């Protein structure tokens, strides 16, 4: 396996872990954590493609990763604020309890 393939496989695994967590955990915060993990996996892809791609002198991958980190920070802040508000209104962050949109 080439280094790029290793990197990408590693990031796929990380993505899978995050996805599994997001799909199975009941706590909304942990779902958010899982999403963070998936985001990080994607970030790793940027770096890997930058490092092993044909044009490492161009910094696009790095810049993408930096912007992605910034956006992830914003997303976490708003997401956690939402979860706290939900908790305050519903007394729970358990996703099984939060099904008011049930059809």
């Amino acid at each position, binding site marked *: 396996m080439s280094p790029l393939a290793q990197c990408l496989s590693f990031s796929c695994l990380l993505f899978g872990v995050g*996805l599994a967590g997001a*799909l199975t955990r009941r706590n909304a915060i942990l*779902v958010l954590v899982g999403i963070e993990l998936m985001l990080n996996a994607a970030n790793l892809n940027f770096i890997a493609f930058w490092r092993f791609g044909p044009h490492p002198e161009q910094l696009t991958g790095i810049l993408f990763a930096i912007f992605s980190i910034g956006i992830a920070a914003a997303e976490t802040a708003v997401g956690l604020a939402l979860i706290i508000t939900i908790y305050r209104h519903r007394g729970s962050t358990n996703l099984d309890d*939060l*099904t008011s949109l*049930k*059809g």
Partner: protein
Amino acid sequence: MDPSHAANAAIVTHLWVIPAFPLLAAGIIAVTRQSGRKLATVCAVGSMVLALILSLVAFGWVLGRDRGGGELHAVQNIPWLQMGSQSLDLGWVLDPLTAVMLVMVSFVGLLIFIYSIGYMAHDPNYTRFFGFLALFAAAMLGVVIANSLLFLFICWELVGLASYLLIGFWFEKPSAAAAAKKAFITTRIGDMGLFLGMLWLYSSSGTLLFYDHGQGCLEVGALAKLAGQTTLVGMAVSTGVSLLIFCGAIGKSGQVPLHVWLPDAMEGPTPVSALIHAATMVAAGVFLVARVYPLMAAGGPAPGVSTALTVVAWVGVITAVFAACIAVAQTDIKRILAYSTVSQLGFMMLGLGVGGVAVGMFHLITHAFFKALLFMGAGSVIHGVHEEQDIRRMGGLRRFMPVTFLTYAVGMMALAGVPVFFAGFWSKDGILHAAHGWQVSPWPFWGGLFGALLTAFYMTRQVAYVFFGEYRGATRRASSATAPAVSDGHHEPHDGTPHESPAVMTGPLAILAFFAIGLGFIGTPAWPWFQSLLSWRPVDHLELGRLFEEGGAETMALSILVVAVGIGAGWWLYGRRPASSATELDVLERHQPAVFRVLREKFYVDEFYEATFIRLNDRWAWFCVTLDNWVWGGLVLVISYLVLGVSWLDRLFDEYVVNGGFDQGCRGIMRGGTSSSKLQDGNTQTYLRTIGVALTALLLLLTWGCHQ
């Protein structure tokens, strides 16, 4: 823009300010509490003072204009409604007619305002009264400055509204409320004609502006066009429009046959009577005829002679004689004056019809002053004898109320046309002179002479009753307490004897008396300053010889004779031996009871209307009801049953065909919705899982798709 326009900028462009002041005052008073008397007074009187000042400025500006050339009418038009290529313009005009009327209205109005301070001092609704007065003044000034028939009509209706409010000011009195309604509805009949005339005028000439630098409807081009077209019974369009507009004037100015509202309107407070009957509202009709005079005169065979003007003259003379006759037999002090007003308005119309704008307007102006004087004098008398209006219960008041007596006498002589020194003589003489020279018919002249005779007679009768002899009212004190309180809140001590009115009321009387004497001299044939101003020609110099030209001397002699006869007859019948008690029969009644009764009952016009129009209306209404109930009602019933039958069939179709299918469809959709909403279990992770599965599927698809 030629220089004359540039010059007129200041006062003409801001002419709208004159009515705006009273309007503003009315607005302020409208939101003032009833206790804000001082504010209301200051606002109303102050606005009238400002309006008067501006009117004088405008008058001065008109006087200062060069009468040789230049445009007579200084106008300022503003587009109001833009409808496609058509535009409805409003505007105002400043010409001699406007200027004279402005000064007259604002001056008399101001005096009446001041007089009202005293007259209404004890009324609880003092503030409201001044608000209405200010509204009235604003509307009237608006009528005067209007350069568009539409604008004039708007203000005209506002005048009608304000007069309704003012006549019905004491609306607790059923008679006042009824009188207000009567005035409003009767004038509305005339206004209908005015409105139709306006529409017709607009559709024929395309404009409602009077003067618009050659495009206005009163200017040569439009007049020629209007006079050129003919309509039913061979009448020119201009004549038709003129007659319709004259309908409005008939209603407003109380001409026969729509004069019935005017005497009833005496139910309002006396300043209102003065304002409405002397100076302004009734003058509005005359003014309207004067304003549209070019239209009236259009298409006639000779200048000053046309079908419309002939109608105006005849209506005028009939009204003059008719109302004068009625006035002879009345006993209510204000009603006598009211019929006198109707009669004088007839004279004005006659003057307009036979002699042109200047003749009619001159009488309007002089009449405004002395009739305001008379009304306010009458108000003073009524005030002095504790709300008594029956002249039979007065008498000998000249000792109690010397100022009122003197000023009233001046007014009476001016109205009667006592020669040389009083304004009424000159203006009435001008009308008679013009009627004498009228080619169409000699009868208006003789009618006018008869009217003048009657005028002198009934005024002498009234003065003799009111001011001479012994006071006959003291015996009636006990019963007057049960009479409806005309003006509640009079707290001054009632000792039963008449008393002189306060200075705030007699002051305006004195001023008006001065004008009732002095105003005549600006329009004598010897020095026709007023006429030359209105006709817009250079001022003639004083020339006594002109008094005796063109049969002037005979006319004057005749009218002096007539006046002398009238006053003499009146004094002989009433003044020589005054009635000794209130119940004593009238002299005329003693000798000619039948005639007198007819006159006292106003020729039974109201009863005639009652018996004819109103009865007819009732009958017609009954007929319509019957028709509705049986003929149309049956027809409607049959049709409705038919419709019911059809709709029943329709319902069957709906219920079993349309609804059935629709219900099936709905049920299907609902089932589909229910089952698909099961997908939405509200659990985030289910959604996420679906996304994951979809992602996997997409990936596999892409990978394997690529490989193949």
